[in-house]
Protein backbone atom coordinates (compact mmCIF):
# COMPACT_ATOMS: atom_id res chain seq x y z
CA UNK A 1 0.00 0.00 0.00
CA UNK A 2 1.23 3.52 -0.79
CA UNK A 3 1.94 5.99 2.04
CA UNK A 4 -1.36 7.39 3.34
CA UNK A 5 -2.43 11.03 3.19
CA UNK A 6 -1.02 11.55 6.67
CA UNK A 7 -2.22 15.12 7.35
CA UNK A 8 -5.74 14.37 6.20
CA UNK A 9 -6.08 11.21 8.29
CA UNK A 10 -4.39 12.75 11.34
CA UNK A 11 -6.96 15.53 11.17
CA UNK A 12 -9.69 12.89 11.03
CA UNK A 13 -8.25 10.85 13.92
CA UNK A 14 -8.12 14.00 16.03
CA UNK A 15 -11.74 14.66 15.08
CA UNK A 16 -12.71 11.15 16.23
CA UNK A 17 -11.11 11.68 19.65
CA UNK A 18 -12.79 15.05 20.07
CA UNK A 19 -16.18 13.66 19.04
CA UNK A 20 -16.10 10.94 21.71
CA UNK A 21 -18.20 11.63 24.83
CA UNK A 22 -16.69 12.24 28.29
CA UNK A 23 -12.98 11.70 28.78
CA UNK A 24 -12.20 10.21 25.41
CA UNK A 25 -10.08 7.10 25.38
CA UNK A 26 -9.95 5.05 22.23
CA UNK A 27 -8.54 1.58 21.66
CA UNK A 28 -6.66 0.73 18.49
CA UNK A 29 -9.39 -1.68 17.39
CA UNK A 30 -12.15 0.88 18.00
CA UNK A 31 -10.21 3.52 16.04
CA UNK A 32 -10.07 1.11 13.12
CA UNK A 33 -13.76 0.29 13.35
CA UNK A 34 -14.95 3.89 13.71
CA UNK A 35 -12.98 4.91 10.64
CA UNK A 36 -14.26 1.84 8.77
CA UNK A 37 -17.85 2.86 9.54
CA UNK A 38 -16.98 6.44 8.58
CA UNK A 39 -15.61 5.33 5.23
CA UNK A 40 -18.76 3.30 4.61
CA UNK A 41 -20.91 6.41 5.00
CA UNK A 42 -18.97 8.41 2.42
CA UNK A 43 -19.38 8.49 -1.35
CA UNK A 44 -16.76 6.40 -3.09
CA UNK A 45 -15.50 9.57 -4.85
CA UNK A 46 -14.85 11.30 -1.52
CA UNK A 47 -11.07 11.77 -1.15
CA UNK A 48 -11.20 10.85 2.54
CA UNK A 49 -12.90 7.56 1.69
CA UNK A 50 -10.26 6.91 -0.97
CA UNK A 51 -7.55 7.49 1.68
CA UNK A 52 -9.02 4.75 3.90
CA UNK A 53 -8.56 1.36 2.22
CA UNK A 54 -9.45 -1.68 4.34
CA UNK A 55 -8.93 -5.44 4.38
CA UNK A 56 -10.70 -8.09 6.49
CA UNK A 57 -8.58 -9.67 9.18
CA UNK A 58 -8.69 -11.15 12.70
CA UNK A 59 -11.01 -8.58 14.24
CA UNK A 60 -12.82 -7.36 11.16
CA UNK A 61 -11.84 -4.64 8.70
CA UNK A 62 -8.38 -3.17 9.29
CA UNK A 63 -6.51 -0.38 7.53
CA UNK A 64 -2.78 0.17 7.36
CA UNK A 65 -3.56 3.83 6.68
CA UNK A 66 -5.23 4.07 10.09
CA UNK A 67 -2.38 2.18 11.74
CA UNK A 68 0.31 4.43 10.21
CA UNK A 69 -1.68 7.57 10.98
CA UNK A 70 -2.06 6.72 14.68
CA UNK A 71 1.62 5.90 14.94
CA UNK A 72 2.59 9.22 13.30
CA UNK A 73 0.02 11.21 15.29
CA UNK A 74 1.41 9.79 18.51
CA UNK A 75 4.93 10.66 17.41
CA UNK A 76 3.95 14.24 16.60
CA UNK A 77 1.95 14.66 19.83
CA UNK A 78 -1.44 15.12 18.18
CA UNK A 79 -2.57 12.05 20.16
CA UNK A 80 -1.24 10.52 23.32
CA UNK A 81 -1.00 6.78 23.51
CA UNK A 82 -0.30 4.19 26.13
CA UNK A 83 0.19 0.47 25.97
CA UNK A 84 -2.27 -1.63 27.94
CA UNK A 85 -1.40 -4.65 30.09
CA UNK A 86 -2.35 -6.95 27.21
CA UNK A 87 -0.17 -5.08 24.73
CA UNK A 88 -2.90 -3.09 23.02
CA UNK A 89 -2.80 0.65 22.40
CA UNK A 90 -5.18 3.24 23.93
CA UNK A 91 -5.29 6.76 22.54
CA UNK A 92 -6.31 10.10 24.07
CA UNK A 93 -6.13 13.65 22.64
CA UNK A 94 -2.57 15.00 22.59
CA UNK A 95 -1.22 18.46 23.30
CA UNK A 96 -0.17 19.31 19.73
CA UNK A 97 -2.60 20.73 17.20
CA UNK A 98 -3.44 18.55 14.22
CA UNK A 99 -2.00 19.64 10.87
CA UNK A 100 -4.03 22.21 8.99
CA UNK A 101 -5.96 20.75 6.08
CA UNK A 102 -8.13 22.22 3.38
CA UNK A 103 -11.59 21.64 4.90
CA UNK A 104 -13.28 21.21 1.57
CA UNK A 105 -16.63 19.55 0.98
CA UNK A 106 -15.15 16.07 1.23
CA UNK A 107 -13.46 16.72 4.57
CA UNK A 108 -16.55 18.35 6.06
CA UNK A 109 -18.62 15.34 4.93
CA UNK A 110 -16.07 13.04 6.59
CA UNK A 111 -16.22 15.04 9.84
CA UNK A 112 -20.03 14.80 9.84
CA UNK A 113 -19.75 11.04 9.16
CA UNK A 114 -17.33 10.63 12.10
CA UNK A 115 -19.76 12.44 14.41
CA UNK A 116 -22.68 10.28 13.26
CA UNK A 117 -20.68 7.08 13.71
CA UNK A 118 -19.40 8.03 17.16
CA UNK A 119 -22.94 8.91 18.27
CA UNK A 120 -24.08 5.37 17.48
CA UNK A 121 -20.94 3.39 18.33
CA UNK A 122 -20.93 2.19 21.95
CA UNK A 123 -17.28 2.41 23.00
CA UNK A 124 -18.23 1.65 26.60
CA UNK A 125 -19.86 -1.72 25.96
CA UNK A 126 -18.34 -5.15 25.36
CA UNK A 127 -15.97 -5.14 22.39
CA UNK A 128 -17.39 -8.39 20.98
CA UNK A 129 -20.91 -6.98 21.18
CA UNK A 130 -20.15 -3.89 19.15
CA UNK A 131 -18.00 -5.82 16.69
CA UNK A 132 -20.85 -8.25 16.20
CA UNK A 133 -23.61 -5.68 15.89
CA UNK A 134 -21.80 -2.90 14.02
CA UNK A 135 -19.02 -4.56 12.05
CA UNK A 136 -19.58 -8.26 11.41
CA UNK A 137 -22.93 -7.62 9.77
CA UNK A 138 -20.68 -6.83 6.79
CA UNK A 139 -18.54 -9.97 7.15
CA UNK A 140 -18.06 -11.81 3.84
CA UNK A 141 -18.73 -15.21 5.46
CA UNK A 142 -21.21 -16.35 8.11
CA UNK A 143 -18.42 -18.62 9.35
CA UNK A 144 -16.58 -15.57 10.71
CA UNK A 145 -19.35 -14.63 13.12
CA UNK A 146 -19.81 -18.17 14.29
CA UNK A 147 -16.17 -19.02 14.87
CA UNK A 148 -15.22 -15.69 16.45
CA UNK A 149 -18.26 -15.12 18.64
CA UNK A 150 -19.74 -18.57 19.28
CA UNK A 151 -16.81 -20.99 19.19
CA UNK A 152 -13.69 -19.16 20.38
CA UNK A 153 -15.24 -17.63 23.55
CA UNK A 154 -16.72 -21.03 24.44
CA UNK A 155 -13.36 -22.75 23.97
CA UNK A 156 -11.68 -20.05 26.06
CA UNK A 157 -14.21 -20.46 28.88
CA UNK A 158 -13.93 -24.26 28.69
CA UNK A 159 -10.16 -24.03 28.94
CA UNK A 160 -10.18 -21.63 31.88
CA UNK A 161 -12.86 -23.23 34.04
CA UNK A 162 -11.72 -25.87 36.52
CA UNK A 163 -15.11 -27.64 36.16
CA UNK A 164 -17.81 -27.64 33.50
CA UNK A 165 -19.56 -24.48 34.62
CA UNK A 166 -20.83 -23.11 31.34
CA UNK A 167 -19.64 -25.45 28.58
CA UNK A 168 -19.51 -29.25 28.51
CA UNK A 169 -17.23 -31.17 26.12
CA UNK A 170 -20.37 -32.22 24.19
CA UNK A 171 -21.37 -28.62 23.69
CA UNK A 172 -17.89 -27.65 22.50
CA UNK A 173 -18.03 -30.60 20.08
CA UNK A 174 -21.36 -29.32 18.75
CA UNK A 175 -19.93 -25.85 18.20
CA UNK A 176 -16.87 -27.29 16.46
CA UNK A 177 -19.09 -29.40 14.21
CA UNK A 178 -21.23 -26.41 13.37
CA UNK A 179 -18.19 -24.25 12.62
CA UNK A 180 -16.94 -26.95 10.28
CA UNK A 181 -20.33 -27.01 8.57
CA UNK A 182 -20.17 -23.26 8.05
CA UNK A 183 -16.63 -23.24 6.60
CA UNK A 184 -16.41 -21.18 3.38
CA UNK A 185 -16.68 -23.45 0.37
CA UNK A 186 -14.66 -21.24 -2.01
CA UNK A 187 -11.70 -22.90 -3.70
CA UNK A 188 -9.39 -20.25 -2.20
CA UNK A 189 -10.01 -21.75 1.24
CA UNK A 190 -9.47 -25.40 0.21
CA UNK A 191 -6.08 -25.77 1.92
CA UNK A 192 -7.29 -24.00 5.03
CA UNK A 193 -10.44 -26.16 5.14
CA UNK A 194 -8.24 -29.26 5.35
CA UNK A 195 -6.54 -27.84 8.44
CA UNK A 196 -9.84 -26.87 10.01
CA UNK A 197 -11.20 -30.38 9.54
CA UNK A 198 -8.02 -32.01 10.85
CA UNK A 199 -8.25 -29.77 13.91
CA UNK A 200 -11.91 -30.75 14.34
CA UNK A 201 -11.02 -34.47 14.07
CA UNK A 202 -8.33 -34.16 16.74
CA UNK A 203 -10.43 -31.86 18.92
CA UNK A 204 -13.35 -34.31 18.86
CA UNK A 205 -10.99 -37.12 19.85
CA UNK A 206 -9.63 -34.95 22.62
CA UNK A 207 -13.05 -33.92 23.91
CA UNK A 208 -14.16 -37.56 23.98
CA UNK A 209 -11.32 -38.33 26.37
CA UNK A 210 -11.34 -35.43 28.84
CA UNK A 211 -13.38 -35.64 32.00
CA UNK A 212 -14.50 -33.13 34.55
CA UNK A 213 -11.67 -33.76 36.94
CA UNK A 214 -8.88 -33.57 34.42
CA UNK A 215 -8.40 -31.61 31.22
CA UNK A 216 -4.77 -32.23 30.22
CA UNK A 217 -3.25 -30.14 27.42
CA UNK A 218 -6.33 -27.94 27.34
CA UNK A 219 -4.09 -24.92 26.71
CA UNK A 220 -2.79 -26.61 23.57
CA UNK A 221 -6.35 -27.27 22.44
CA UNK A 222 -7.28 -23.63 23.02
CA UNK A 223 -4.15 -22.39 21.23
CA UNK A 224 -4.91 -24.57 18.21
CA UNK A 225 -8.46 -23.18 18.01
CA UNK A 226 -6.93 -19.69 17.88
CA UNK A 227 -4.27 -20.73 15.36
CA UNK A 228 -6.93 -22.10 13.01
CA UNK A 229 -8.73 -18.76 13.23
CA UNK A 230 -5.52 -16.83 12.56
CA UNK A 231 -4.74 -18.94 9.51
CA UNK A 232 -8.26 -18.34 8.24
CA UNK A 233 -7.81 -14.59 8.75
CA UNK A 234 -4.55 -14.68 6.77
CA UNK A 235 -6.34 -16.25 3.81
CA UNK A 236 -9.30 -13.93 4.30
CA UNK A 237 -7.22 -10.76 3.86
CA UNK A 238 -5.75 -12.20 0.65
CA UNK A 239 -9.31 -12.60 -0.67
CA UNK A 240 -11.07 -9.57 0.84
CA UNK A 241 -9.15 -6.32 0.48
CA UNK A 242 -9.48 -2.95 -1.21
CA UNK A 243 -7.47 -2.43 -4.40
CA UNK A 244 -4.85 -0.32 -2.60
CA UNK A 245 -3.45 -3.53 -1.06
CA UNK A 246 -2.69 -5.30 -4.35
CA UNK A 247 1.05 -4.92 -3.73
CA UNK A 248 0.76 -6.50 -0.27
CA UNK A 249 -0.74 -9.77 -1.46
CA UNK A 250 2.56 -11.54 -2.25
CA UNK A 251 3.86 -10.84 1.27
CA UNK A 252 0.54 -11.96 2.75
CA UNK A 253 0.78 -15.24 0.82
CA UNK A 254 4.25 -15.87 2.23
CA UNK A 255 2.95 -15.17 5.73
CA UNK A 256 0.07 -17.57 5.10
CA UNK A 257 2.44 -20.33 3.93
CA UNK A 258 4.62 -19.93 7.02
CA UNK A 259 1.63 -19.99 9.34
CA UNK A 260 0.20 -23.03 7.56
CA UNK A 261 3.46 -24.91 8.05
CA UNK A 262 3.52 -23.91 11.69
CA UNK A 263 -0.09 -25.07 12.18
CA UNK A 264 0.65 -28.39 10.48
CA UNK A 265 3.52 -28.95 12.92
CA UNK A 266 1.31 -28.03 15.87
CA UNK A 267 -1.45 -30.39 14.74
CA UNK A 268 1.04 -33.24 14.38
CA UNK A 269 2.42 -32.57 17.86
CA UNK A 270 -1.11 -32.44 19.29
CA UNK A 271 -1.97 -35.79 17.73
CA UNK A 272 1.25 -37.34 19.06
CA UNK A 273 0.40 -36.02 22.52
CA UNK A 274 -3.10 -37.46 22.32
CA UNK A 275 -1.74 -40.84 21.29
CA UNK A 276 0.73 -40.85 24.18
CA UNK A 277 -1.79 -39.79 26.78
CA UNK A 278 -4.94 -41.59 25.74
CA UNK A 279 -3.95 -44.84 23.93
CA UNK A 280 -5.94 -43.93 20.85
CA UNK A 281 -6.84 -46.45 18.18
CA UNK A 282 -6.27 -49.54 20.31
CA UNK A 283 -8.66 -52.28 19.18
CA UNK A 284 -10.65 -53.94 21.94
CA UNK A 285 -9.34 -57.40 22.86
CA UNK A 286 -10.57 -60.32 20.81
CA UNK A 287 -11.62 -58.35 17.73
CA UNK A 288 -10.42 -59.57 14.37
CA UNK A 289 -10.06 -58.10 10.92
CA UNK A 290 -13.69 -57.00 10.97
CA UNK A 291 -12.75 -54.53 13.64
CA UNK A 292 -11.36 -52.18 11.02
CA UNK A 293 -14.33 -52.58 8.68
CA UNK A 294 -17.57 -50.72 9.23
CA UNK A 295 -21.00 -52.04 8.25
CA UNK A 296 -23.38 -50.51 5.74
CA UNK A 297 -25.66 -49.16 8.42
CA UNK A 298 -22.85 -46.97 9.72
CA UNK A 299 -23.63 -44.40 7.06
CA UNK A 300 -20.01 -44.39 6.00
CA UNK A 301 -20.82 -47.37 3.77
CA UNK A 302 -23.24 -45.22 1.80
CA UNK A 303 -20.76 -42.40 1.37
CA UNK A 304 -17.81 -44.66 0.63
CA UNK A 305 -19.72 -46.38 -2.18
CA UNK A 306 -19.77 -43.07 -4.02
CA UNK A 307 -16.05 -42.62 -3.47
CA UNK A 308 -14.57 -45.90 -4.58
CA UNK A 309 -13.42 -44.43 -7.86
CA UNK A 310 -11.33 -41.32 -7.50
CA UNK A 311 -11.79 -40.18 -3.90
CA UNK A 312 -9.27 -37.40 -4.31
CA UNK A 313 -11.46 -34.86 -6.06
CA UNK A 314 -12.06 -31.69 -4.05
Amino acid sequence: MQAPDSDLLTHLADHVLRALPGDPELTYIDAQKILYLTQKRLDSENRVAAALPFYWYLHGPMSKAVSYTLRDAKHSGVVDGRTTATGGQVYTPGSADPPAVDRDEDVVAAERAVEAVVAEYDVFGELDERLREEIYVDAPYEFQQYYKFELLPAVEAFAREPYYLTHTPEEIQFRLARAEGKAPTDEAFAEWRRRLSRFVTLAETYLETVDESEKPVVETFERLAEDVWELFAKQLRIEEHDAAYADDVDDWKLEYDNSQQSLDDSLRRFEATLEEQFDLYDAPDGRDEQSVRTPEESGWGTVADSLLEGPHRD
Partner: protein
Amino acid sequence: MTETGDFWDTNLLLGYTVDWDRLGPPVDAYLQLRGSHRETIASTRVFEEARRVVEKQRRRARTAADRVFEQFDAGRHDTVDDVKDFVCAEFADDWGKVGPVLDYIDHHDSAFLGLTETDSERVLQSTFEEITDDFAEPDDSVQRLRRGGGALALEQFTGGLDSYRSEYAARYDKLDGLLDDTDRDLLLDSHHAVAVTERSGLGFATFDRGDIADNDEAIEACLDGVSVVDCWQFS
Protein backbone atom coordinates in the same frame (compact mmCIF):
# COMPACT_ATOMS: atom_id res chain seq x y z
CA MET B 1 9.64 -56.85 -13.74
CA THR B 2 8.84 -58.85 -10.61
CA GLU B 3 6.44 -57.22 -8.22
CA THR B 4 7.23 -58.11 -4.66
CA GLY B 5 4.13 -56.44 -3.29
CA ASP B 6 1.21 -54.10 -3.83
CA PHE B 7 1.11 -50.41 -3.04
CA TRP B 8 -2.48 -49.47 -2.10
CA ASP B 9 -4.15 -46.42 -3.57
CA THR B 10 -6.45 -44.35 -1.35
CA ASN B 11 -9.64 -45.74 -2.85
CA LEU B 12 -8.58 -49.32 -2.06
CA LEU B 13 -7.73 -48.36 1.51
CA LEU B 14 -11.10 -46.62 1.93
CA GLY B 15 -12.94 -49.48 0.23
CA TYR B 16 -11.33 -51.82 2.73
CA THR B 17 -12.79 -49.85 5.66
CA VAL B 18 -16.33 -50.80 4.60
CA ASP B 19 -17.79 -54.28 4.98
CA TRP B 20 -20.98 -54.49 3.00
CA ASP B 21 -22.37 -55.97 -0.15
CA ARG B 22 -21.58 -53.34 -2.72
CA LEU B 23 -18.04 -52.61 -1.63
CA GLY B 24 -17.16 -55.93 -0.04
CA PRO B 25 -16.98 -58.11 -3.19
CA PRO B 26 -14.59 -55.99 -5.24
CA VAL B 27 -12.22 -55.44 -2.31
CA ASP B 28 -12.48 -59.03 -1.07
CA ALA B 29 -12.01 -60.40 -4.59
CA TYR B 30 -8.81 -58.40 -4.89
CA LEU B 31 -7.65 -59.69 -1.50
CA GLN B 32 -8.47 -63.32 -2.24
CA LEU B 33 -6.99 -63.44 -5.71
CA ARG B 34 -4.01 -61.20 -5.16
CA GLY B 35 -3.65 -58.98 -2.12
CA SER B 36 -3.50 -61.62 0.59
CA HIS B 37 -0.73 -63.50 -1.21
CA ARG B 38 1.74 -60.69 -1.18
CA GLU B 39 3.12 -57.86 0.86
CA THR B 40 0.82 -54.83 0.94
CA ILE B 41 2.03 -51.34 1.70
CA ALA B 42 0.66 -47.81 1.65
CA SER B 43 2.59 -44.60 2.06
CA THR B 44 2.04 -42.01 4.75
CA ARG B 45 0.54 -39.86 2.00
CA VAL B 46 -2.10 -42.53 1.26
CA PHE B 47 -3.10 -42.75 4.91
CA GLU B 48 -3.22 -38.95 5.14
CA GLU B 49 -5.25 -38.70 1.94
CA ALA B 50 -7.71 -41.32 3.18
CA ARG B 51 -8.18 -39.33 6.35
CA ARG B 52 -8.70 -36.14 4.36
CA VAL B 53 -11.37 -37.81 2.24
CA VAL B 54 -13.25 -38.91 5.35
CA GLU B 55 -12.93 -35.42 6.84
CA LYS B 56 -14.07 -33.78 3.61
CA GLN B 57 -17.20 -35.92 3.43
CA ARG B 58 -17.93 -35.29 7.09
CA ARG B 59 -17.59 -31.55 6.51
CA ARG B 60 -19.99 -31.66 3.56
CA ALA B 61 -22.54 -33.70 5.53
CA ARG B 62 -22.34 -31.09 8.28
CA THR B 63 -22.65 -28.23 5.81
CA ALA B 64 -25.78 -29.85 4.38
CA ALA B 65 -27.29 -30.38 7.83
CA ASP B 66 -26.51 -26.83 8.95
CA ARG B 67 -27.99 -25.27 5.82
CA VAL B 68 -31.12 -27.41 5.92
CA PHE B 69 -31.58 -26.40 9.56
CA GLU B 70 -31.01 -22.69 8.93
CA GLN B 71 -32.13 -21.96 5.42
CA PHE B 72 -34.57 -24.57 4.13
CA ASP B 73 -37.90 -22.90 3.47
CA ALA B 74 -40.20 -25.52 4.94
CA GLY B 75 -43.59 -26.30 3.42
CA ARG B 76 -46.38 -28.53 4.72
CA HIS B 77 -45.64 -31.57 2.59
CA ASP B 78 -41.88 -31.58 2.18
CA THR B 79 -40.30 -34.88 1.18
CA VAL B 80 -36.73 -36.02 1.37
CA ASP B 81 -36.48 -35.25 -2.36
CA ASP B 82 -37.29 -31.59 -1.59
CA VAL B 83 -34.48 -31.58 0.95
CA LYS B 84 -32.10 -33.16 -1.55
CA ASP B 85 -33.07 -30.64 -4.23
CA PHE B 86 -32.29 -27.84 -1.77
CA VAL B 87 -28.93 -29.36 -0.83
CA CYS B 88 -28.10 -29.90 -4.50
CA ALA B 89 -28.70 -26.22 -5.19
CA GLU B 90 -26.64 -25.23 -2.14
CA PHE B 91 -23.70 -27.18 -3.59
CA ALA B 92 -24.29 -25.47 -6.95
CA ASP B 93 -25.37 -28.80 -8.51
CA ASP B 94 -21.74 -29.97 -8.44
CA TRP B 95 -22.38 -33.70 -8.62
CA GLY B 96 -18.86 -34.69 -7.62
CA LYS B 97 -19.33 -32.86 -4.34
CA VAL B 98 -22.99 -33.37 -3.64
CA GLY B 99 -23.43 -37.00 -4.79
CA PRO B 100 -22.10 -38.63 -1.60
CA VAL B 101 -24.00 -36.06 0.49
CA LEU B 102 -27.30 -36.98 -1.20
CA ASP B 103 -26.61 -40.66 -0.57
CA TYR B 104 -25.94 -39.79 3.02
CA ILE B 105 -29.22 -37.88 3.30
CA ASP B 106 -31.05 -40.97 1.96
CA HIS B 107 -29.46 -42.90 4.78
CA HIS B 108 -30.62 -40.34 7.38
CA ASP B 109 -33.79 -39.13 5.70
CA SER B 110 -35.86 -38.79 8.86
CA ALA B 111 -33.12 -36.80 10.61
CA PHE B 112 -32.77 -34.39 7.68
CA LEU B 113 -36.54 -34.04 7.29
CA GLY B 114 -36.67 -33.34 11.02
CA LEU B 115 -34.25 -30.46 10.57
CA THR B 116 -36.71 -28.73 8.24
CA GLU B 117 -39.40 -28.68 10.91
CA THR B 118 -37.61 -27.30 13.94
CA ASP B 119 -35.71 -24.34 15.32
CA SER B 120 -34.31 -26.41 18.17
CA GLU B 121 -30.53 -26.57 18.28
CA ARG B 122 -30.93 -29.79 20.28
CA VAL B 123 -32.27 -31.49 17.17
CA LEU B 124 -29.37 -30.19 15.10
CA GLN B 125 -26.93 -31.31 17.78
CA SER B 126 -28.44 -34.80 17.68
CA THR B 127 -28.01 -34.97 13.89
CA PHE B 128 -24.44 -33.72 14.19
CA GLU B 129 -23.73 -36.45 16.73
CA GLU B 130 -24.96 -39.08 14.26
CA ILE B 131 -22.69 -37.58 11.60
CA THR B 132 -19.78 -37.56 14.04
CA ASP B 133 -20.25 -41.24 14.85
CA ASP B 134 -20.59 -42.26 11.19
CA PHE B 135 -17.35 -40.57 10.20
CA ALA B 136 -15.36 -41.39 13.33
CA GLU B 137 -15.57 -45.10 12.47
CA PRO B 138 -13.68 -45.04 9.16
CA ASP B 139 -11.16 -42.58 10.58
CA ASP B 140 -10.55 -44.93 13.46
CA SER B 141 -10.21 -47.85 11.01
CA VAL B 142 -7.64 -46.00 8.91
CA GLN B 143 -5.65 -45.02 11.99
CA ARG B 144 -5.65 -48.58 13.34
CA LEU B 145 -4.53 -50.00 10.00
CA ARG B 146 -1.78 -47.42 9.97
CA ARG B 147 -0.58 -48.66 13.32
CA GLY B 148 -0.72 -52.36 12.47
CA GLY B 149 -4.15 -53.12 13.97
CA GLY B 150 -6.52 -55.65 12.39
CA ALA B 151 -5.75 -58.93 10.67
CA LEU B 152 -4.42 -57.31 7.51
CA ALA B 153 -0.75 -56.36 7.64
CA LEU B 154 -0.61 -53.14 5.69
CA GLU B 155 2.86 -51.74 6.05
CA GLN B 156 3.27 -47.98 6.17
CA PHE B 157 5.99 -46.60 3.90
CA THR B 158 7.18 -43.52 5.74
CA GLY B 159 10.07 -42.62 3.43
CA GLY B 160 8.05 -40.60 0.90
CA LEU B 161 9.21 -37.09 0.06
CA ASP B 162 7.15 -33.94 0.63
CA SER B 163 7.75 -33.04 -3.02
CA TYR B 164 9.20 -34.99 -5.91
CA ARG B 165 9.68 -31.95 -8.12
CA SER B 166 13.47 -31.97 -7.87
CA GLU B 167 14.20 -35.63 -6.99
CA TYR B 168 12.39 -37.01 -10.05
CA ALA B 169 12.03 -33.88 -12.20
CA ALA B 170 11.42 -35.58 -15.55
CA ARG B 171 8.96 -38.14 -14.18
CA TYR B 172 7.26 -35.45 -12.13
CA ASP B 173 6.70 -33.28 -15.20
CA LYS B 174 5.35 -36.17 -17.26
CA LEU B 175 2.88 -37.25 -14.60
CA ASP B 176 1.97 -33.64 -13.88
CA GLY B 177 0.60 -33.37 -17.40
CA LEU B 178 -1.39 -36.55 -17.00
CA LEU B 179 -2.84 -36.57 -13.47
CA ASP B 180 -3.93 -34.32 -10.64
CA ASP B 181 -1.43 -33.45 -7.90
CA THR B 182 -2.56 -36.13 -5.46
CA ASP B 183 -2.48 -39.02 -7.94
CA ARG B 184 0.89 -37.81 -9.24
CA ASP B 185 2.43 -37.80 -5.76
CA LEU B 186 0.91 -41.14 -4.73
CA LEU B 187 2.36 -42.80 -7.82
CA LEU B 188 5.73 -41.18 -7.17
CA ASP B 189 5.53 -42.48 -3.60
CA SER B 190 5.25 -46.02 -4.99
CA HIS B 191 8.16 -45.42 -7.36
CA HIS B 192 10.25 -43.97 -4.54
CA ALA B 193 9.42 -46.95 -2.32
CA VAL B 194 10.91 -49.22 -4.99
CA ALA B 195 13.93 -46.98 -5.41
CA VAL B 196 14.92 -46.76 -1.74
CA THR B 197 14.12 -50.30 -0.60
CA GLU B 198 15.18 -53.78 -1.69
CA ARG B 199 11.99 -54.30 -3.68
CA SER B 200 12.35 -55.11 -7.36
CA GLY B 201 8.92 -53.72 -8.15
CA LEU B 202 5.49 -52.82 -6.80
CA GLY B 203 1.98 -53.10 -8.15
CA PHE B 204 0.02 -49.87 -7.79
CA ALA B 205 -3.34 -51.35 -6.75
CA THR B 206 -6.23 -49.02 -7.53
CA PHE B 207 -9.96 -48.86 -8.25
CA ASP B 208 -9.48 -45.57 -10.11
CA ARG B 209 -9.99 -46.45 -13.75
CA GLY B 210 -10.66 -43.01 -15.16
CA ASP B 211 -7.43 -41.41 -14.03
CA ILE B 212 -4.97 -44.20 -13.34
CA ALA B 213 -5.88 -47.65 -14.71
CA ASP B 214 -6.80 -46.24 -18.11
CA ASN B 215 -3.43 -44.49 -18.23
CA ASP B 216 -1.47 -47.57 -17.20
CA GLU B 217 0.83 -47.67 -20.22
CA ALA B 218 1.89 -44.04 -19.90
CA ILE B 219 2.39 -44.40 -16.15
CA GLU B 220 4.41 -47.60 -16.42
CA ALA B 221 6.58 -46.12 -19.17
CA CYS B 222 7.31 -43.21 -16.85
CA LEU B 223 7.81 -45.07 -13.57
CA ASP B 224 10.12 -48.05 -13.82
CA GLY B 225 9.46 -50.58 -11.07
CA VAL B 226 5.75 -49.72 -10.89
CA SER B 227 2.96 -51.62 -12.64
CA VAL B 228 -0.63 -50.45 -12.48
CA VAL B 229 -3.07 -53.04 -11.10
CA ASP B 230 -6.72 -52.44 -11.95
CA CYS B 231 -8.48 -53.99 -8.95
CA TRP B 232 -11.81 -54.21 -10.80
CA GLN B 233 -10.34 -57.05 -12.90
CA PHE B 234 -10.69 -59.43 -9.95
CA SER B 235 -14.45 -58.90 -9.60
